[in-house]
């Protein structure tokens, strides 16, 4: 019998190695797997390479993981934000390495990893400093830059509903990087707000099929306000 449901976040994250590449979903206030990041802090793995669109906000979540000195390198598209002080300080002190990646390359490099693509050519960033030193090629009269996939050892993503086979649905723009990160990592852990029985997810609506998911763990939804769901703060 296949049962990917973990009894706890700690169980889902057990075995995360020092030096692992950890893909962390989320964009802005949507889709951040806050409880899983807290679990990773408790789990203790260090010397991590973290892939996320941003580089942490405030003092919680990814910022807390950074502050705990557990991250060697961040691969992201937009580290600078009004409240990215933890990253800013570490970066200026030379204590964390940054690989800045255009957001579309970030998404496509993850997708490529999940799809078994060895590398791809893309026009994004040609002629800019973010393509410096990279192989280029003219294809159909247009200049392209060679980009390699980003493989994760672990992915932490936030979904909405899941079943014991690991099938997932998402909620609105909280989907963002979840599906491509799920594909790109060997050990994908998804938090869900609701666990359902097999067959209760409409197969036409499943966004991430369970084959891409290793562990599903339920976390309660945060308080609602004004009909909406508040940020994971």
């Amino acid at each position, binding site marked *: 019998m296949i049962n990917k449901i973990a009894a706890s976040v700690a169980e889902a994250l057990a075995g995360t190695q020092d030096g692992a590449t950890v893909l962390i979903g989320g*964009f802005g*206030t949507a889709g951040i797997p806050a409880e899983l990041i807290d679990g990773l802090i408790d789990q203790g793995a260090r010397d991590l390479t973290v892939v996320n669109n941003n580089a942490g906000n405030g003092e919680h979540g990814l910022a807390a993981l950074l502050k705990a000195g557990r991250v060697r390198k961040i691969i992201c598209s937009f580290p*600078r*934000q009004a409240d990215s002080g933890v*990253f800013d300080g570490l970066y200026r002190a030379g204590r964390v390495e940054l690989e800045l990646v*255009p*957001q*579309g390359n970030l998404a496509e490099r993850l997708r490529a990893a999940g799809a078994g693509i060895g590398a791809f050519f893309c026009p994004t960033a040609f002629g800019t400093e973010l393509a410096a030193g990279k192989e280029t090629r003219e294809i159909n009269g247009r200049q392209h830059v060679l980009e390699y996939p980003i493989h994760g050892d672990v992915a932490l993503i936030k979904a909405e509903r899941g079943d014991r086979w690991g099938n997932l649905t998402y909620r609105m723009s909280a989907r*963002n990087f979840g*599906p491509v990160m799920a594909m790109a990592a060997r050990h994908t852990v998804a938090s869900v707000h609701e666990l359902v029985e097999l067959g209760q997810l409409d197969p036409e609506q499943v966004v991430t099929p369970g084959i891409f998911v290793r562990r599903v763990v339920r976390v309660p939804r945060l308080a609602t306000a004004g009909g909406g769901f508040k940020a994971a703060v």
Partner: protein
Amino acid sequence: MDSKESTMNLPARRQKEVLARRVAQDIPDGSYVNLGIGMPTLVANQLPPGREIILHSENGILGMGPAAAEGQEDFDLINAGKQAVTLLPGGAFFHHADSFAMMRGGHIDICVLGAFQVSATGDLANWSTGEADAIPAVGGAMDLAVGARQTWVMMDLLTKSGVSKIVERCSYPLTGLGCVKRIYTDLATFDCSTEGLRVVDRVEGLSHAELERLVGLPLRA
């Protein structure tokens, strides 16, 4: 150029809302459009009635509606600037790789971006000022700039100290080469091409010669 003095007697500039309306006028019915963070976001409020224009947000939304009313914010439904928004009937959600495939695959008809500098041939600099200790951040700017079928820039023509942001060659780090087709500014609208700049319109009271002096580059009428 002695900038302070040279900009003192300029004709009335287009206010931001007026500039946003000017941009919006040129977006055809049925277009798929991505509006960049900052000033371009204002275009959403000026879309001409009677046209169906579908807004794309890089974080996985097509058919994005106006900002959410106070008290009705849902923080799973946000735009690229991380503000709570709404979804129009017919709207759709999708993941990041699909969202950027819409840009990079040439499916987005028009993107409107802000800029630090644009060159006469359409090179764009809008992601970094290149300052030594600045934390760099690029987001989706490079993907949009080269991926959308048309990239438009919306900005003030002059910096606060009166220097033209339209230049012969960008001195700031580039976002994309030869990607900007049109520049909408508070004083005039321009087309960019390999042949250089052409003036599409000017604000009332601004002569072609005066505009050419402000930009400091040859302008075709």
